[in-house]
C-alpha cells in the first residue's frame, strides 16, 4: 500500500524537469564550447577573460549592486511604515499591483516622462534647473530599474517585519534599548532573511536586464543580459552567448548560496 501506485504524478513532472530544466542548462554548457562556425573550442572562455568582457561583467555587477542597494534603502523604510498602517494588507496589495503591470509598459512610460519635453524636464524647468538630457543616461537606467524592482524588495521585507513578534520590540525597549538600538540589535537581524531574499530577487534580474538597457539607457549600459541577447539574436554567435550565460548562471548560484537559505514560496 505504501509504495505501489503512489507516484504516477512523478512521471509528467519529471519529464518536464528533464526537458525544460536540466536539458537547457546542459545545452547552454555544451554550446559554450563551440565557436560561430560550429567548431569545438575553448576560445569563448579565453575571450571572456579579455578586458572587454571583464569590464562589461564588472560594470554589469556594479550597476546591479547600485540598483540593489538603492532599492533596499528605499524599500526597508517603506515596508516598515507599511506594517504600521491600519489596513496594511490593502496597502501592501497597492504596492504590489504595479509589479503586475507589464514591464514594457512601465519602461515605455518612462520614455515619455524622461523625454526631452517630458514631465521630468518640465518639472526641472519649473524649479529653475532647466532642461537636461535624462533619457539614455546612467541615471535614467538606475532610476527605472529601481522603480521596477521596488515591489519585489518590499514584499519579502514586509513579510519578515510582519512576522516579527511585537513583544520582542517591547522586550528590547523594556531592557532599556533606544529605538535605534532596538532596530540595530533586534529588528534588523530578525528581518535579515527578508532582506536577503529581497536582494536576491533584485540582484539576479538586475544583472540580466536587456530590454531596459535598450529602451532607457540607449545601449550606454551593457549588462550580461544585453550581451547574451546581442550574441544570440544579433551576431548569432551562440557559443559566446552561451559562455556568458554560463558565467551568469555561476554568478546566480553564488548569489543564492551567499544570501543563504531562501524561503520557499517567495518569488
Amino acid at each position, binding site marked *: 500500500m505504501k509504495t505501489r501506485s503512489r507516484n504516477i504524478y512523478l512521471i509528467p513532472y519529471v519529464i518536464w524537469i528533464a526537458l525544460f530544466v536540466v536539458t537547457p542548462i546542459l545545452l547552454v554548457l555544451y554550446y559554450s564550447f563551440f565557436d560561430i562556425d560550429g567548431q569545438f573550442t575553448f576560445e569563448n572562455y579565453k575571450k571572456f577573460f579579455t578586458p572587454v568582457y571583464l569590464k562589461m561583467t564588472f560594470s554589469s555587477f556594479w550597476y546591479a549592486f547600485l540598483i540593489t542597494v538603492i532599492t533596499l534603502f528605499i524599500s526597508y523604510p517603506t515596508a516598515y511604515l507599511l506594517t504600521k498602517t491600519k489596513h496594511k494588507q490593502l496597502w*501592501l496589495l497597492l504596492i*504590489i499591483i504595479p509589479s503586475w503591470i*507589464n514591464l514594457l509598459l512601465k519602461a515605455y512610460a518612462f520614455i515619455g516622462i524622461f523625454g526631452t519635453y517630458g514631465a521630468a524636464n518640465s518639472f526641472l524647468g519649473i524649479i529653475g534647473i532647466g532642461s537636461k538630457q535624462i533619457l539614455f543616461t546612467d541615471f535614467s537606467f538606475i532610476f527605472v530599474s529601481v522603480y521596477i524592482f521596488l515591489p519585489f524588495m518590499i514584499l519579502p521585507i514586509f513579510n519578515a517585519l510582519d512576522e516579527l513578534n511585537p513583544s520582542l520590540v517591547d522586550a528590547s525597549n523594556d531592557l532599556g534599548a533606544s529605538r535605534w538600538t532596538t532596530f540595530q540589535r533586534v529588528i534588523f537581524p530578525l528581518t535579515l532573511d527578508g532582506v536577503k531574499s529581497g536582494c536576491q530577487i533584485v540582484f539576479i534580474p538586475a544583472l540580466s536586464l536587456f530590454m531596459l538597457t535598450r529602451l532607457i539607457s540607449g545601449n550606454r549600459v551593457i549588462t550580461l543580459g544585453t550581451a547574451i541577447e546581442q550574441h544570440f539574436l544579433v551576431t548569432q554567435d551562440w557559443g559566446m552567448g552561451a559562455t556568458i550565460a554560463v558565467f551568469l548562471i555561476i554568478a546566480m548560484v553564488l548569489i543564492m548560496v551567499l544570501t543563504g537559505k531562501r524561503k520557499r514560496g517567495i518569488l
Partner: protein
Amino acid sequence: MKKISKLSTIYLIVMFFILYAPIFYLMFYSFNSGETMYQFESFTLDWYKELFGNTRLLIIVLNTAIIALLSATISTILGVAGALAIYYARRRRVKNTLLSLNNVLIVSPDVIIGASFLILFTMIGIKLGFISVLLAHIAFSVPIVVIMVLPKIEEMNTSMIYAALDLGASRWNVLTKVILPYITPGIFAGFFMALTYSLDDFAVTFFVTGNGFTTLSVEIYSLARRGVSLNINALSSLLFVFTMLLVVGYYFITKRNNRPNRLGVRQ
C-alpha cells in the same frame, strides 16, 4: 501600535505617487489628440478607435490570449501533478531535490531561460513560432503553479486522507473526492498566476519566437524601440484595466479562501 508620524506619511505618499504616476501618465496621454507624450492638446478616443481598426494588432492580441489560456491550462495540470509528486515523495532528499529543480526556472533570469530554450528548440527541430512560444510558456509556468498549489496540499490534514481511506475510498477516490476539492483555491490561484506570467512575458518570448509570430509584449517592444506612439498608450491603458481585472479576480479567489495574505509578486 504607535501612530505614524507626519514625515512617515509623506514618505509613503511619495512612494505611492512614484509607483503609480508613470502608469497614469501613460493612460492620460492615450486620450491626447496630439502625437506626443508631453503636449496634451485635447481629449480624443481616436487612438482606441485606431487600435480596434488594426487587424494585425487584433490578431496579435488573439495570439497572446490563446497562448496565455492554453499554457495556463496545461501548466496547471502539470503543476498540480508536480505538487502531488513532491507531496507524495516520501524521502526528504527526493522532496528537496524536486523542490530545488522546481525553483530553478523561477530564479533564473529570463535571458537564460530564453537563450537556453532557443538552443533546445533549435536542437530538437521545433520551428520557432506558435508551438515554441507555447512550450516555453508552459515550461516556465509549471513551477509557479507548483509553488501556489503545494502549500495548500501541505496544509491539508493528513488524517483527512486516512479518514477517506478508512471509509473505503480508493486512491483515485481520495484524489478526486478529497484532495482536488480541497486544493481547488490553490489550483485557481496557480492558474491565474500562470495566466499573468504568460501575458506578461517578454524576454523568453522574444528569444523563442520566429518571424511570423508575435505576442503583445514583443510587439510593444518593437513599437517602443521606434519611439513614442500613442497607440501604445491606448494599448497600455487597456492592458492595465485587464490586469486589474485579473488581480481583482485573483484577490477574491484567495480571499474567499480565508487567507488573503501572501500574494506573489511577479517577475
